[in-house]
């Protein structure tokens, strides 16, 4: 150890080599391979990858109507899921951070986290049963067939349920950092609740909401299991990737499809960067 002690650069290298290796090889390397292989094609018979540069995959993506439709649908689902999560998470997080007692706050955080401990699949299948013909939701709405059934709406509902904790937690963390004294000062200076919310709480809240939205948005864009379970015949980007890898063994085309959410998320991140959301992650 004393050798390391005398060589700070070596010490630093030893400390950082594992994460750097991970970042460069496993993470950036995989991403690069993904991007590169998107330009390859597959031999239709042997299933072997043909390593020759070709724009065929992207041409298919751009010219076939169905890929545009699926992309727009996925974007719509991601936006709707994010919106639902924001509407539910803001009051919830505000209550947790500012209203509840310190003791119950503790339990509330645990309560928000518990769903994350259960398997994603179990939760999705539970929703499948809830939404079934003649199931609990149908009964609540007055009989078989009155509920939403399986489809796009069910997909949004289930995804919003699954990702809600990822929205509550960053907003809660943001609000917790907001000192109560600021709210009191605002009130002392004569601001009403609305004004306080607009001038004091919102500037703190918005970066947190964007931070949470990065989670809900990207998780929704990449999801394919919940859609398969409750989506009826709906297909999203994730399903297309899965179909091309799982069934057709067409890794290059799947890679090309997978660049769509990457591009969308890059655009989204650049857009929300200015709000300071990335510091809230």
């Amino acid at each position, binding site marked *: 150890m004393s050798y390391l002690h005398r060589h700070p650069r070596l010490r630093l290298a030893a400390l950082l080599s594992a994460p750097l290796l991970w970042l460069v*090889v496993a993470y950036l390397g995989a991403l690069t391979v993904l991007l590169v292989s998107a330009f390859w094609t597959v031999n239709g*018979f042997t299933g072997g990858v043909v390593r020759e540069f070709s724009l065929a995959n992207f041409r298919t993506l751009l010219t076939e109507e169905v890929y545009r439709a699926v992309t727009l649908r996925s974007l719509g689902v991601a936006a709707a899921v994010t919106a639902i999560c924001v509407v539910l998470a803001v009051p919830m997080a505000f209550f947790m951070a500012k209203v509840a007692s310190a003791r119950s706050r503790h339990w509330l955080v645990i309560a928000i986290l518990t769903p994350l401990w259960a398997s994603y699949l179990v939760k999705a299948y539970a929703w499948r049963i809830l939404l079934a013909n003649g199931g609990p939701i149908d009964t609540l709405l007055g009989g078989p067939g009155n509920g939403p059934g399986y489809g796009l709406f069910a997909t949004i509902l289930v995804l919003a349920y699954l990702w809600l904790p990822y929205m509550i937690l960053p907003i809660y963390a943001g609000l917790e950092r907001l000192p109560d004294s600021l709210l009191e000062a605002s009130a002392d200076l004569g601001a009403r609740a609305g004004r306080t919310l607009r001038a004091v709480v919102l500037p703190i809240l918005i970066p947190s909401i964007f931070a949470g939205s990065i989670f809900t948005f990207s998780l929704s864009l990449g999801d394919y299991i919940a859609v398969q379970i409750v989506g009826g015949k709906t297909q999203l980007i994730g399903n297309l990737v899965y179909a091309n890898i799982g*069934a*057709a063994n067409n890794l290059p085309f799947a890679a090309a499809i997978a660049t769509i959410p990457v591009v969308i998320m890059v655009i989204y991140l650049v857009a929300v960067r200015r709000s300071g959301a990335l510091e809230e992650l």
Partner: protein
Amino acid sequence: MRDSGKTIMAALAAGMLALAGCGGGGDSGGTGSGPGGMPVPKVDKLTALGAGEGAVNVVSWAGYVEDGSTDKSVDWVTPFEKETGCQVNNKVAATSDEMVTLMKTGDYDVVSASGDASLRLIYGGDVAPVNTDLVANYKDIFDGLKNKTWNSVDGVAYGVPHGRGANLLMYRTDTVKPAPTSWGAVFDPNSPYRGKITAYDSPIYIADAALYLMKTQPDLGIKNPYALDDKQFQASVDLLKEQNKMIGEYWSDYTKEVQAFKSGNSVIGTSWQVIANLTKADKTPVEAILPSEGATGWSDTWMISSKAKHPNCGYLWMNHIVSPKANAQVAEWFGEAPANKLSCGETTDKNHCTTFHAEDESYFDQVWYWTTPLARCVDGRTDVTCKDYSAWTQAWTTIKG
């Protein structure tokens, strides 16, 4: 920080090199004797059986290789290991493509390939012809399964048949009246069951539409639902796009379908016999029939790797898995028609073979087993190009919209 840029580049370059080095496409040109003139790689078959090597590496479908770890009462591996001294190392594959990929590594000796993978393995040179004289139980296998297009080339057997099943038309008997007899029930645009129709979620389902068109629109000239030229393919895709408007959901795992029929979200659609049995066991009134047009289906074959490190144990395994007792156990556990004629006397449920039509060749004469669609038409036509499986996959995406 100046160096880190170089490091990243070096690491990326290394990654790319590693990637470029592995695997390999390979051309498939030439004029051989296979379907559409494909040449078959020359691989010698085993001439004589020697002593077991002490182990056998298996790639299989879930449920095919049970050693009692899933369910204590389900075990046909331990007796084999005791008898032959061949330790069974099993790898479950989720898809046919995974099977093909695993077999290309050369680390495995035998595989339970389905018809949509077997030709790729044969023409890829990944599996060897099977010397059926060395498989004692081969003689008791149903003739309807031997030397078929998916497990033999030019009369040379490339595997030992394992079992088979048909993709049936299942319906709720309490809602679907009158009882359907034709696939038309799931393709009729004016179906009263709109929104409650289900279909199998895989590109291979395009063959179901082609089969229907083969019988209802003979002028399209479809002779084999897996060999579709542009016009025939387009007609099948159009039919499925129309059907999509009436589909409630597509199914791919059987628990999902059992639940959908139980709740009534689906009332009619494609199914397997095992799903029909499970649904009935759930007290749901369903019936599964083989419609008048026939049906698509599947048949699995045990094949041996051309690079097998344990060929003798591999042969012993193939012989064991189609032995009357073991084949009966697999067939009952998995829910399929066994390949061995004598298995029917070994099943615990004496009606098993009747339920799964194991001995009914006229039943399976109407079944078109899954086959990989190739650009060189599998029905032997050479004047047209057929749509290959990747085209089927992309079309399936379009169909689902």
